[in-house]
């Protein structure tokens, strides 16, 4: 599981660098540090929107509103967790049976 998660996180970092035109290398991006904090990567709300669009395009991860986006886009770890959860949900179907 761990190598799979590491590959996913590396993929997210590489995608972010490409999509947001960052002049960084993947190993310069911390996996648990807040992405949008002032002492983080220096990204802004425009980058956040581009990231939301890119996550849907590359990983099929839909973030329907600003609240969901702000939770998921906290760090590389939280993005990877959301992608894993959405893949798991897609494989197993809805957790609850629909009401009659």
């Amino acid at each position: 599981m761990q190598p799979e998660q590491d590959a996913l996180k590396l993929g997210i970092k590489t995608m972010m660098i490409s999509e947001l035109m960052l002049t960084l290398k993947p190993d310069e991006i911390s996996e648990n540090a807040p992405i949008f904090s002032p002492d983080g990567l220096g990204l802004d709300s425009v980058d956040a929107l581009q990231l939301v669009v890119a996550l849907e395009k590359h990983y099929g991860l839909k973030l329907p509103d600003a609240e969901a986006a702000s939770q998921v886009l906290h760090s590389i770890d939280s993005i990877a967790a959301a992608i894993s959860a959405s893949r798991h949900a897609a494989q197993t179907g809805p957790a609850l049976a629909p009401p009659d």
Partner: protein
Amino acid sequence: MVILVTGANGDIGQAIARRFLHNDAASRLWLSVRSRRERAEALNAEFPGRCRILSLSAAEAAEWESAIAGILQTDERIDVLVNNAGLHRDHLTANMPGEDWAAVLSANLDSVFLGCRAVIRPMMAQHFGRIVNIASLSALLPPKGQSNYAAAKAGVIAFTRSLAKEVARSGITVNAVAPGYIETEALKGFSAPEKQGLVQQIPMRRFGRPDEVAAAVEFLACPSAAYITGSVLKIDGGIL
């Protein structure tokens, strides 16, 4: 390129669509019309297989969402949006019915917001987009009797500049053109002496042609105009 031109039944919309069809053989044109569609259909017949006609009330959010979804389903991308649809209902402000204020703001300004909002995400995903909003010289040099139209078009210019900053990093440019007196249906409402009076205000001593507006739109929409964004190109024979 996949191009959507709104207000495609009007003189300027026709000229814009025609110019893209003539000069870019690979372009696919989506022509949006509100009610009258005969001229858009004639263009479609003239360039078979290159055009699609879309019924769209440009001030209705839901119609925009389904129109763009339809374009993406068919062509898988949207490269250029030309927000050309609009109308004017001129009155002195003291006499202006509230519904004519609202209708003009909605048709000219809400429509631009809704169209841009609908294409931003797909354009961001493809890292390319060209948005050209048709403003008016009335926004820069507002005449009496057009406070609604001038306010709406000034809003279009401010909106264009703000949005340009929001999407600049995503390969999307957003620009406006501001046509002055152009030989269109709207100008036919003036009498010959009134027209003569208008021409006297134009340093070039003639009205503009729809194709001269289309040339500016085509330029701003081309891939090589990549570093021009948030600009307003006036097309007025030198009035301003």
